[in-house]
C-alpha cells in the first residue's frame, strides 16, 4: 500500500503592507523628479 501523500503546502502569505510601502517609496522617488521636471 502506498504511503499517504502529504497535503500540499500552502504558499507563504503575501506581505501586502511591506510591498505596498516599497512600491510607494519607488513612486515617491519618481514623482519628485516628475513634478520637478515634468
Amino acid at each position, binding site marked *: 500500500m502506498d504511503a499517504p501523500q502529504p497535503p500540499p503546502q500552502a*504558499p*507563504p*502569505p*503575501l*506581505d501586502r503592507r*511591506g*510591498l*505596498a510601502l*516599497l*512600491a*510607494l*517609496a*519607488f*513612486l515617491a*522617488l*519618481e*514623482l*519628485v*523628479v*516628475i*513634478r*520637478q*521636471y*515634468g
Partner: protein
Amino acid sequence: MCADHPAFGYVDHRPLSVWILAVWKRLLGEALVAIRLLPALVGAACVVLGGEFARALDGGRWAQRLTALAMVAAPVYLGTHHVFSMNSFAALLWLLAMRAVIAALDAPRRWPLAVAWLVVAAILLLGGRSRGNYLVPAYPPLLAAGAVALERFAGRRGRMVRALPFAVLVLGSAPLVPLAIPILPVERYIPYAKALGQEPSTDERKEVGPLSQHYADMHGWQELTDLVVRAWETLTPEERARAAIFGQNYGEAGAVTVLGRRRGLPEAISGHNNFWHWGPPKRGDGSIVVIIGGDEADHMESFASVTAVDTLHAPLAMPYERGLTVFIGRGLRRPLAEAWGRVRHYD
C-alpha cells in the same frame, strides 16, 4: 509622436507601448507630468510583482521585501520608469511572462528563469548588435530567485545577518540614485558624477559633452523651439500657409512639434525613421522650409536660396544638437515627391 500615428508597427518601436500611450493621452492629455506618471505607476507595480514573484518561489516575507527593495534600489529601474519609452513596460512583461511559466509548473522551480535568461542572452549575443542593457528587464525574476535562496541561508542566522542584505542594498544604491534620475541640479550633478568616477557616456557610439546622453537629451529642446518660432515669425502669412518645418532627426522634429503646437507651429517633418513614413507636409508644396540644422552648402543644392536665421545655444545638449543653425530654404529645386525620397534615413 508615434502615439499620434497609431499603426501595427514602427521603424524603431514595437507597437504595444505606443498603443498604450495613445489611450493614456486620450484619457489624461499630453502634459509631461501625465505622460510620465504612467511609467512610474508601471515601475511601482513591478516592485509589488517582484515581491509576489518571490512568494511564488516559496519566498517568505523576508525574501519578498528584499526583492521589492532591490527593485526600488536598482538605479536602472528608477531610470527606466521616470520617462515614457517602450522600455518602461519591458520589466513588467518579463515578470508577467515568467510568473505565468512558474504558475504552470507543478512546484515552484527556479530553473526556467535561468533557462529563459540564457536563451535570450544567447540570442542577443548571436545577433551581434545588441547592448548589454537589453537584458535589464530580465533580472527582476532572478532577483526574486536570489532573494529566496538568500532567505534559506539567512533564515537560520541572527538578526544582523538578516539585516545585512537590506543595508547593503540601501547604502550601495543611495549614492547612485542621482545618476539614474535627475534629483541634483545639473551644476551639482556634473562634479558629483565625476567624483564617483562616472564619465559621460552613450550607448549609441556618439560624441558626448558634459552629460551622459540620457541626461543631455533632456536639454536644448525648448531653446530649439524658441529659435524655430523666431524663424517662423519672419515668414509672411502667405509663406506660412505653404511652409514646412524640417528636422534632421526624430528628436528635433518631435520636440518642435510638441513644444511648438501651442505656439502656432505646424507638425514638423523629417526623413528619420517613422517621420519619413508620415510623409511630406500635407499642407503647401514644401517650397519654403524652415530647416533645423544640417549644412548650408547641402541646403543650397536643394533650394534656390538659403538664409541662416540663428544658431542654437544649448551647451548641455548632445554635441550634435547643441550648435544647430536654423535656416529658411526657399525655392525647392526638385518636385516635392522626389526630394522626399532622398531624405529618408533609418538609424
